[in-house]
């Protein structure tokens, strides 16, 4: 029973205030989804996941916990490894590049209506979509 295996993770999600928490086992894969109140809570959940299933290789859990962004957060840091971050005309790597943001630069978050592709604006005023994985909200 996967809910037993990942009990510590589920309990932690409950106690740390993850909103709209969903826990469902579908075809031998446990799905846990919800909205974490902070990035710290999300990191904690991934640490517990790593403890139960080292390096996340078992393939029996899909952990989809987003971080709720405060309304007043409008700045994001570019967290690429070292390269520039592409800013594209639309949400997708098939979209033309309309600008770039430098590694570690802080730019403006316009909206997050697309979960993977956030609409951003650089300090030069270029606006477009960047991959959310490389953007970290600045409190």
């Amino acid at each position: 029973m996967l809910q037993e295996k990942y009990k510590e993770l589920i309990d932690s999600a409950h106690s740390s205030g993850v909103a709209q928490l969903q826990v469902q086992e579908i075809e031998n894969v446990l799905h846990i989804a919800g909205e974490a109140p902070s990035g710290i809570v999300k990191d904690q959940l991934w640490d517990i996941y790593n403890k139960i299933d080292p390096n996340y290789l078992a393939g029996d859990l899909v952990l989809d916990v987003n971080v709720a962004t405060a309304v007043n957060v409008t700045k994001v840091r570019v967290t690429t490894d070292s390269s520039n971050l592409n800013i594209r005309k639309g949400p997708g790597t098939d979209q033309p590049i309309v600008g770039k943001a430098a590694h570690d630069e802080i730019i403006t978050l316009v909206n997050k209506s697309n979960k993977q592709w956030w609409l951003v604006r650089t300090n030069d005023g270029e606006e477009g979509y960047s991959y959310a994985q490389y953007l970290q909200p600045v409190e």
Partner: protein
Amino acid sequence: MKLTKVFAVVPILAISLMVSCGPNDADIQAKVTETLKTVPGISAQVKEGVLTLSGNVSDAAAKTAAEAAVKEEKGIKSIVNNITITPSLSSVVAPIAMAADEALTKAVRDATKDYQGVTAVVKDGIISLKGTLSADKWKRLKMTLDGLGPKKVDASGISIAK
């Protein structure tokens, strides 16, 4: 002047109306309790026009909704919302949404673009991966893939570089 008399009378009338016709605590409590019947587990107490809500619900939306449902009630001066939130498994309302293969394939292509040496195949909602990468990079990729709505992320072909 007649008009000044009218102006003088209006405030007195207004005050006397407020005193005589304002609903008392018991009336407000009865009405609020009736309104809250649809929200199980919440109780209301009214004292000197201050409404205190207590009880337990499964999420923040229900807490806000309970307050919104009663705040227009006449005679309430302020609301103390003491409702606590305990998410419960039984509160699951919507099923986990799964992405269709076409949309998932595109999303996986976007997600894996910057991971050289990793290949991904999507079939029946299952993302199957092959390749070697560092533990940190794999964690970052897995976090992204889990957010795409897959049925499963099959990592049996992934090797973690030491």
